[in-house]
């Protein structure tokens, strides 16, 4: 049930496997409304898996646990239903769809997610134009095919363009900063802040670098290792980790250090 007290995202005891391999081994995560959280973690620790499972990727098997968006269970929802309810995923590796024009795709997506009205007329076009300007995406991209031949950074900017147009309640950004240049990171951070700060929305930023976190200043940082969140803390945890590395962090966790 939607209520002001509900966190925008709540993940409880999530265990997930794929093709017989167990990947997430019990994730608990709460993102209150208006907050931005970050997840950092080793390669292969399960960050993308977490993001995919929140979005409802059909290939994963949920072994245990539950997920709630503003108090509403996501468990039985298809990916498109989650999207229409306000979940958005910025992909680590956005897929290209040859032959599908960007402009057409954006209009159709806005129409599916926010309703036909939102995709019609001059209001949509103005919004699109200003968002593209903000993200430094040339107009010519509208007639290109979705992610087809885009450079790494262009793909990431295009993910954020979609974020801005779809106006989700929960944005999950999977390594959106990887491959972006310095200006790109700044622009994207601005975008994320504007979608979340002072609203009832929330965001989960998956990243390997503290740079983007300096711009968005997350409320919480979680460290994932081996399919578990092993430590959580304030923004400074990201810097500690960057200075000392994962082996050090694991040692601290074993010693029972609390990073709060």
């Amino acid at each position, binding site marked *: 049930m939607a209520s002001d007290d509900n966190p925008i995202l709540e993940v409880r005891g999530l265990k997930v496997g794929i093709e017989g391999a167990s990947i997430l081994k019990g994730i608990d995560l709460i993102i209150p409304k208006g907050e931005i959280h970050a997840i950092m973690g080793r390669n292969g620790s399960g960050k993308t898996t977490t993001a995919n499972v929140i979005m409802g990727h059909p290939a994963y098997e949920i072994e245990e646990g539950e997920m709630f968006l503003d108090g509403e269970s996501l468990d039985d929802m298809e990916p498109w239903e989650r*999207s229409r309810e306000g979940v958005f995923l910025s992909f680590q590796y956005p897929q290209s769809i040859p032959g599908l024009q960007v402009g057409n795709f954006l209009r159709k997506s806005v129409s599916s997610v926010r309703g036909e009205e939102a995709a019609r007329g001059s209001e949509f076009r103005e919004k699109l134009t200003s968002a593209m300007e903000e993200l430094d995406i040339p107009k010519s991209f509208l007639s290109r095919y979705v992610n087809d031949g885009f450079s790494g950074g262009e793909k990431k900017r295009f993910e954020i363009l979609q974020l801005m147009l779809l106006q989700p309640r929960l944005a999950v950004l999977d390594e959106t900063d990887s491959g972006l240049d310095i200006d790109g990171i700044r622009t994207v951070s601005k975008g994320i802040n504007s979608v979340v700060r002072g609203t009832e929305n929330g965001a989960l930023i998956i990243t390997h670098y503290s740079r983007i976190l300096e711009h968005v200043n997350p409320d919480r940082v979680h460290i994932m290792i081996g399919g578990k969140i092993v430590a959580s803390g304030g923004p400074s945890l990201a810097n500690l980790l960057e200075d000392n590395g994962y082996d050090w962090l694991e040692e601290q966790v074993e010693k029972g250090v609390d990073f709060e």
Partner: protein
Amino acid sequence: MSGDSEAREAVGDYKAGWHDPENATIRFDFGLSEKVVRDISELKQEPEWMTEIRVKAYRHFVERPMPTWGNTEELMEIDFDKVCYFLRSSDQAGSSWDDVPDDIRNTFDRLGIPEAEQKWLSGVTAQYESETVYHSIREDLEKQGVIFLDMDSGLKEHEDIVKKYFGSVIPYSDNKFSALNTAVWSGGSFIYVPKGVHVEMPVQAYFRINAKNMGQFERTLIIADEGSSIHYVEGCTAPTYSTDSLHSAVVELLALPGAHIRYTTVQNWSNNVYNLVTKRGVAHENAKIEWVDGNIGSKLTMKYPAVILKGEGAHAEVISVAYAGNGQHQDAGAKVHHMASNTTSNILSKSISKDGGRGSYRGMAKIMPKAENCRLNIVCDALILDEESRQDTYPTMEVGNPTAHCEHEASVSKVGDEQLFYLMSRGHTEAEALGMIVNGFFEPFTRELPMEYAVELNKLMSLEMEGSIG
């Protein structure tokens, strides 16, 4: 009636599957014989030379074995004795829709033909069963000497031109079905564009089969004189029946020096129609022939639009898509024959199969020894939507001159789960996502179509995708 609804179930969302009550003014008994052939010719009061060609063609048809390629099993299932070879449903071809019998006019209304005519076409013929029931051309084009008639009227009014070119590109002896068509042809279009005249907006022919077990054998001849241009568009549909119908057309194009012919087809026959068509054009010096060929419907299609590059500097373009759903086999492709130097051709084939459908690309590209500096580019892409479906390619290339520059690319792919997930995460259902991928795959073809056709094709494919996901 129960047979019809069964068939309708089998083809799902086919939108053009209704049929009118049959009000034939003349209907031949089922089956084919020399007498049937002579009767058709007599009924049409044709000149003797045409009767002779028909009879020769008939004899050749009888002797000629079935093709040994394509789908030989399904070809063997055709029962030529259970086909109606001639059916007249209106005593005259009207030049106003008011002259067309009500039932038939309603059918073309439902198919949107009169509306399209007003919006974006230079001329229209509408064929219903064996003959043209409506025909019109814009006055300004007529004044410039453009001839746009149904083939029967073409023969009556311009016998000299027809005699000169009929069968010159595709002789009856070309293959079994060109023989059949030559023997019993009826309807089709006859077009002549005078020197230097450019027909800006497309002309359209629409072919509708209404009766059960019907055979439609239209014959089309387009002659674009020097430096002229025309875009011809054809569409076809039929009701869904549980018994088969046969459509076997012959289309001959002549592009004289510097002329440009574009021939666009969107074939959406119901899934009980055998579609066995021979299409070929001759391109003279610096002429250009383009086949834009879409095959969405039918039970079995065997069709390989061909261009003979006869004059120096001629260019051929064959862009085709095929969609094979449940119970369908699309055996399509292209043929180019480089006979002169500095000729170029591009072939792009896109094929999708789903629900056990079967798509085949069959191509033949030939470069003659005396043709210097020819360029040939072939790209065949296939997309398979599930495990039950099938795609094959049978490309043949004979390069007889070492200066030729030939490229051939072929790919077969499946729709990726990650692509689907990406689109679904943007609010699109699985069927919508699949539709977007499929329409994207066809886009290089779709963008060549007149806008109205492109929109229709996209809708059609989206509907097909909805049918598949339960």
